């Protein structure tokens, strides 16, 4: 029997070595696998290269991993945000290397790694600083720059539900980078709200087929759902509205 589920977030992040390249899903906070990141902080791996769209928000999740000084380099498209103070401080202090990649090139380079593409000519970034030093070519009257795949040792992603074969479905815009990062890492580790029986996910609607997934851990239902239904009552950071009063942006 194939069973990719593991019992705990500690088991899920076991074996991540110092110096590993890790893709972390999410766009801002949406789809960020906070429980896996917390487990990674506890696990202790350092000198990491992180691939994410952003560079952390507030003081939790990816920001906490940065604050714990476990990250050597970050590959992302949009580090600077109103709540990226952890990154900002480390970057200004020269403690963090940054590779800035236009968001579409970031996504397509991740997909290319998962799809076995050696390199591709992208229309994005042509003639800009971010294409400096890159091979350029005119094809059919349009200019392109050559972009290479980004692959990773591990991917940490968040999905709504998964089964023991690793099939996944996501929720709304929390899907974002999850499906492509799952394809581009040697070991893909997924936190889900709940694991479901094999066969209960409709094969027409599986977004990430289990072939791309290695470990699945259930972390419990997100705060704004009850019995799978959206109930709201939280701020954009997912904190109960009452508690967040006067704090939320």
């Amino acid at each position, binding site marked *: 029997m194939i069973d990719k589920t593991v019992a705990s977030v500690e088991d899920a992040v076991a074996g991540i070595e110092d110096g590993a390249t890790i893709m972390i899903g999410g766009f801002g906070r949406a789809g960020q696998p906070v429980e896996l990141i917390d487990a990674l902080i506890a696990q202790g791996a350092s000198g990491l290269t992180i691939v994410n769209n952003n560079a952390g928000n507030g003081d939790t999740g990816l920001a906490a991993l940065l604050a714990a000084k476990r990250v050597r380099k970050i590959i992302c498209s949009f580090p600077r945000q109103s709540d990226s103070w952890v990154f900002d401080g480390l970057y200004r202090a020269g403690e963090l290397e940054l590779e800035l990649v236009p968001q*579409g090139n970031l996504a397509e380079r991740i997909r290319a790694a998962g799809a076995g593409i050696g390199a591709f000519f992208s229309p994005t970034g042509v003639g*800009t600083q971010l294409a400096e030093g890159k091979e350029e070519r005119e094809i059919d009257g349009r200019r392109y720059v050559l972009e290479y795949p980004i692959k990773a040792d591990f991917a940490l992603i968040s999905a709504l539900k998964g089964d023991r074969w690793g099939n996944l479905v996501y929720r709304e815009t929390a899907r974002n980078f999850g499906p492509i990062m799952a394809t581009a890492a040697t070991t893909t580790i997924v936190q889900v709200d709940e694991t479901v029986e094999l066969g209960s996910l409709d094969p027409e609607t599986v977004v990430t087929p289990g072939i791309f997934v290695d470990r699945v851990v259930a972390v419990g239902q997100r705060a704004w759902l009850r019995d799978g239904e959206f109930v709201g009552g939280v701020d954009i950071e997912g904190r109960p*509205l009452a508690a967040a009063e006067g704090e939320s942006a």
Partner: protein
Amino acid sequence: MSTRISRDDLAARIAADIPEGSYVNLGIGAPTLVANFLPADQEIILHTENGLLGMGEAPAPDRIDPDLINAGKQPVTAQAGAAYFHHADSFAMMRGGHLDVCVLGAFQVSQGGDLANWSTGAPGAIPAVGGAMDLAIGAKSVYVMTDLLTKQGESKLVAECTYPLTGVGCVTRVYTDHAVFDVTPGGFRVRELFGDNTVEGLEELTGLKLAQVVERAKRVETTRGPS
């Protein structure tokens, strides 16, 4: 009469140029305001690059869904007819030329249609580009929404951009608080004048020779849009 229209008026002006049935991406910041002025009786489908077509308005405060956000990471809703997709599919949509219109902010636009909107190049500034470079080269029409002048009074319409570029030759039209300009092979062409602006006055403000206006630029009164 005045020489400037408000940001809301400008958003309304842009909204009026977007035909029903268009697929539109509104960049983060001021362009987001355009959504407030799209006519309620027309279907215009909004794309947000973090994986949604058919983006609706902001939710009520107690219905905020942290899984359902726009590119600016603000809470939004999904319309009937919406679809979710992953990031590579979302940018394929953009870069493959399937969006009809995107509206972006700008630091500078050159008369060749180059756009600079992601970095002032200031030393020590932390760079961030997001999806701007993809949007700039991807949409069929790239509209820029901006004040004509910086706070220091410098023209954002320039002969050549001095700030780092976002995209080369990509801008279709520039909507400013003074006038609307088309980017043409001959440089900027005044399309509409707001308030008591004149082509000559704009040439003075921008320091640019504005291309021959084929028909006298339409003069638009400053009015308040709906709020």
